[in-house]
């Protein structure tokens, strides 16, 4: 079936991030529902008390504290050493995980291309707010070559990294997530872009992420041919990942049944996610990225 095979060439000719989209993204900001500790000074308040001008609290002096933060006025009045604590403005870890299994190569544009566009768009929002942006492929490798980017000037690096990314991985999602969790310890926002088409199941992988206490967003990408398959006849369906074969004689009844199965699959994923505080968003490759970001993700509270 010609329409089931994605046209890689066409989908890659499109620019990953259009200037119009970039202009729209510049006004946005990533929102975390939790306040995390950053490593570097950023533009958002941190749990950690630091050196900003915003006063936070006092505490008793203990040996070893920086003498510069002792409140001498307080010592004069009360004859006790107190230390002034200030709010620290910190940066935010923003991780994006892209499913790079071969099943992502389907659809028009391909789910993989769509995922890269989405990751680029969200990453750019992070860069504009001086967050620590890292986009990783779920390929299960121990040493990720994904750069950690900060600042608007890193946009070209982000795009370059995305364009070099390929979908060839055959490792299960669980393994890949596990490898990610071992490599990265920072807290922050994590966006997982995947089609969830993993026969070993996605639940284990999500549990790993939940255990990391990250603010997790799951974006479930499906192509149109998965949502409404346009096939007929007696077919031997070959799984592109494990070459598994499913023999079907397509009939309207079968198509209806498939749609029911897909709907229950989505419902299951949404249910599983919401139980664990993961924000679940299902999208089709037919829905444009800017629309997804500006409307659906804003509704979900990822951006504002």
């Amino acid at each position, binding site marked *: *079936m010609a329409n*089931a*095979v994605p046209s890689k060439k066409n989908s890659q000719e499109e620019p990953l991030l259009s200037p119009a989209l970039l202009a729209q993204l510049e006004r946005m900001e990533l929102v975390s529902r939790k306040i995390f500790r950053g490593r570097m000074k950023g533009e958002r308040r941190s749990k950690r008390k630091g050196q900003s001008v915003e006063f936070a609290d006092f505490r008793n002096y203990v040996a070893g504290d920086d003498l510069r933060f002792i409140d001498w006025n307080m010592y004069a009045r009360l004859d006790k050493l107190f230390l002034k604590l200030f709010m620290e403005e910190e940066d935010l870890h923003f991780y994006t995980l892209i499913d790079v299994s071969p*099943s*992502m*190569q*389907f*659809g028009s544009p391909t*789910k993989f291309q769509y995922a890269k566009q989405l990751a680029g768009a969200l990453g750019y929002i992070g860069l504009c707010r001086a967050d620590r942006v890292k986009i990783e492929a779920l390929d299960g490798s121990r040493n990720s070559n994904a750069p950690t980017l900060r600042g608007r000037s890193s946009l070209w690096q982000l795009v370059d990294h995305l364009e070099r990314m390929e979908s060839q991985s055959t490792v299960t999602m669980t393994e890949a997530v596990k490898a990610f969790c071992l490599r990265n310890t920072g807290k922050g926002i994590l966006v997982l872009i995947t*089609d969830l*088409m*993993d*026969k070993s199941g996605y639940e284990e992988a999500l549990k790993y992420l939940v255990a990391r206490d990250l603010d997790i967003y799951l974006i479930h990408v499906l*192509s149109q041919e*998965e949502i409404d398959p346009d*096939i*007929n*006849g*007696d*077919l*031997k*369906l*070959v*799984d*592109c*990942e494990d070459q*598994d*074969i*499913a*023999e*079907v*004689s*397509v*009939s*309207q*009844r*079968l*198509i209806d*049944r*498939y749609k*029911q*199965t*897909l709907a229950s*699959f989505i419902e299951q994923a949404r249910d599983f996610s919401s139980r664990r505080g993961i924000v679940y968003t299902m999208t089709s490759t037919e829905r444009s990225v800017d629309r997804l970001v500006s409307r659906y993700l804003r509704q979900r509270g990822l951006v504002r």
Partner: protein
Amino acid sequence: MLTWYQWLILGLVPPLILSLYFLKLRRVPLEVPSTYLWTKTVEDMHVNSIWQRLRNNLLLWLQLLVVLILMIACLRPGCTGEKLAGDRFIFLVDKSASMSATDTESGITRLEDAKNQIYTLIDRMKSSDAAMVISFSDTEGVDQSYTKNKAILKRKVKSIEATQQGSDINRALVAATGLANPGRTSDKLSNTDVQVADALAATMYIFSDGAIKDVSKYAPGELTAIYQPVGAVTPASNIGITTFSVNDQLDTGGSIEAFVRLQNSGFAPKTIEVSLYIGDQLTDADTVTVPGREIAEANMSLGANSRLADIGQSPPGGLSLKFDLTSVAAVLESAAPIRFKIDAPDDYLLDNEAYCVLNPSRLTNILVLTDYNPALKLASSTDRLKKIANVEFSERSFLKEKEYETNAALGVYDLIIFDQCAPETMPACNTVFLSSLPPGEDWKFTEELEITPIIYTNNSHPVMFDVQMQSVSILNGQVIEGPKGSTNLVESIAGPVIAIGPRSGFEDIVVGFPMILYEEDGETPYNTDWHKKPSFPFFMQNIIRTLGSGSRFNSLRANRPGNPVKIKPRYPYEEIDVKNPKGRQESLQQQPNKSFVYNQTEDTGIYSVSEKGSLEVDQLFAVNLLDRLESDIAVRDELKLGYESIKGNSTREPARRDFWTFLAFFALMALTLEWIIYNRRVFI
């Protein structure tokens, strides 16, 4: 039929189809992102279960249906049909009057029954077969020449209508055999004999009741004749009128009698009521018993159904009736129709009525141009002749008078006898020349005769009925040579001395010897002793009856339906109207011979003649079928065509009529349906 191992192989086909369905050999591979959902879907549907797999699989059921139909087709289902061998057919349909009889099983007319049989035969023709339709009564017509178009054939057969005419198959056979056996022709230039066309073998179906005159000359050649008798096998009882006439007064000495002959074609005698009407008035009625067909003693023991063979040998029973009409005719003022009717409904109604016309007497005008001929005068003035003829004697010089010219040209005379004289132009009537020749080159005297014995008299000609000339002596005379088509009536050793010849509707008789010699000294000695013999008055009477239209009753002329009728009105009208029994009127123009010819005599009954535009009836004439063969509605079981005798095919040759072609067609339809569904699977 198939042998056991062929059946075995055929029986293996359905299991093979089923196994192919399980193996699913023809699946098209398609790469998908994941079979995860599909597998779940398929598991949900339990498609992997064998019976689930077969359930709702319309394609499989259709394929099994195709095989089932083909297997049934191999069983050769069929029914008893009629064999139709050959590839060219000629359907000869009898449309004569007797085909209107309704003695068929379903009560329709024989002609309709024959048509239905032909439709069946047409349906059974192969698409490459050609057929031809010829219908015949006493005339024939090729309704449709050879065609393969069944629709046209059926339409032409449907358009055949029953007539009220007799049947004569001769010319229809000529038309049919002519196509099957084309003649040969010689090329004048090369002097070689060339076959104009290949002989085409054909099967000829004759649909008739067998009431046909036997055919004497018939060379079938490549033609195979099959006779399909139409009508009841057991001869139905039909009383028919075969003769109805009013006698000639001359023969009965003044009394007028209507003569009727009834015929019973059944075996049992039948009592019927008959009535005779003059105009619309019932004049006479009677109850009579008509005896049945005589059965040969040898066949007495056979049942009615087995008597078919007897029909050819035993004539139908008959009864003659006479009605005296003298008193009625005496008070008759104008022409009156006479109708004779049988009051007994039977299978064949056309012969239950007969018609005749009693015209008021019109004296025949005869002019005799002679200076002195006592024998002629004597013979023309008998009491019998006076009743029918007005004989006028004139001197020969009357020829030159104006009155003669006018009367002769207008056709006032019916007959002119020229005694040793001749007009300049021939009159518009029949003539007799005594020892003179009509003007023109047609008639010649070739040789002088002296005392010659007469050796031959042509008594078969109506003019010479009962005229014995052997004892007649002739002193002087001349041998005659007549025009083309003339008939010699009396011959001497040297040649003909009396001859009759045609002249555009009229007839001329030339007698080669005079009765009386007009000598220069005024003596008139007899040249012959004929006037002393009884043959002379007979001759005169015959001449006046035959050439002078002396018949008083038109019914004496046998007007049969379909035959042209020559009408001579009482007055020389330029144009006349003829009204047929159904009331349809037709105008006729006068012919050069002062008479009229009417052709539209399809219907039996009384036709009336009047001057154009006038309501006054000039004369009536009757058209009757009166055919013994047609009234004998018993179906003959064989036809005699030449030396061949064709047995009726009444018990049809049984033959298989296969239905496998229909089944093969259904199988093809099922296969097409399957193909359509396969290409539009989404609708399953």
